[in-house]
């Protein structure tokens, strides 16, 4: 059975529909999902020490909620990042996790799509789907969020990715359709 990791920085009390629709869609497909509610977890910011690259390869010296997330990431076929959109990007609760993904890279460099990047420590990487929630329509933030998703996919050497953007006043049917469309792109 395919495994899905959901990293959720969107408090469910603000809009339980998104989470419910997403889980129902994944259940319909027979996917097994595990969700981490990031706002409730103890995750420290990256210290930017570089030890996970060269001194303790693949391991972060900080011991907190990230160990479970990294272990699950490695075993997943799909990772879904669910976040309010902060200035065109992820909320800081989610970005704290993204900053701590460095143990998934080796220190070695590779050239991917003509750009310099670090090699993945684990292959293949899961597909990536981001779900960004805008409080209200904002074209610049929408475009910035899409571009960020694309950049994450390039940087993590991920082939299949999708960005879904939902606004606060979207009807449940719209949300469902958009999530369905996103899942089709990554599955």
């Amino acid at each position, binding site marked *: 059975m395919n495994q899905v990791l959901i990293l959720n920085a969107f408090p469910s009390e603000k809009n339980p529909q998104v989470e419910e629709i997403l889980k129902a869609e994944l259940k319909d497909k027979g996917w097994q999902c595990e969700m981490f509610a990031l706002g409730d977890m103890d995750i420290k*910011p*990256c*210290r*930017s020490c570089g030890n996970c*690259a*060269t*001194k303790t*390869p*693949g*391991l972060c010296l900080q011991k907190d909620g990230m160990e479970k997330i*990294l*272990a699950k990431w*490695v*075993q997943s076929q799909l990772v879904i990042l669910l976040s309010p959109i*902060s*200035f*065109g*990007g*992820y*909320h*800081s*609760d989610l*970005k*704290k996790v*993204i*900053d701590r*993904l*460095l*143990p998934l890279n*080796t*220190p*070695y*460099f*590779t*050239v991917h799509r*003509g*750009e*310099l*990047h670090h*090699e993945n*420590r*684990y*292959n*293949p990487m899961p597909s990536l789907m981001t779900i960004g929630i805008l409080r209200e329509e904002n074209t*610049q*933030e929408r475009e*910035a969020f899409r*571009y*960020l998703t694309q*950049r*994450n996919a390039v*940087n993590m050497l991920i082939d299949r990715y999708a960005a879904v953007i939902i606004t606060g006043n979207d009807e449940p049917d719209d949300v469902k359709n958009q999530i369905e469309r996103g899942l089709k792109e990554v599955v």
Partner: protein
Amino acid sequence: MNIVSLIGSNRGEKSTSASMVNYLAQQLVPQGIPVSNHYAVRMYHQPHAQAVFLQELQESVLLIVSSPVYVDFLPAPLIHVLEGVRERMGRNGLEGRKILAIIHSGYPEPQQRRPSLEMCRCFAREMGMEWWGGLSFGGTSPISGQSLEAMGGMTKGIRSVLNQTVEKIVKGGLTGVETLALEDRSTIPLSPWLVKLMMNAMIRNNAKKSGIKDLKARPYGVKGK
């Protein structure tokens, strides 16, 4: 004019982000333009430091955000501070103030810094600030918090851009722009393939010297096992 800087690196005072702001301050302060440094990582851990930052920000003319790129984007503590500014001051709460972003990363390609510049511009729009543009610098890892002058010729291009920026700030030559990045410079003039070969050889040598056997270790196992 007084300037407030917001340094995004989690290395705080010992960071390249701080080196860049310090280089600007060394030239601005003698010309009667004070620069006050604030560190996102400190504000993240000590919320009272954010109150001081907000107070100074309200009294300032220009905010300089200086930050590295962590996994394609601004570091989490910096985003946390920006979210806090929006929460406390509300939309358009910094109307009339200007913002300049200095974004740097180890990678030479400008597209690797674009999402961070975009975020700073989105923050400016939301807070009603005038966007004075971004300075984008690649190949900055070797600086590692040292002074830009100490790096000699390697940082010549970066210093040249910063010198021009100082001149524009002093003479009032910076204005609101639509452009995302005013300048992009990289200290690495080589092809990515060549950089890859050189860097990987250096990494292998360093690992050998420090007795690290397997830099490609997989402590979380392999997929499906």
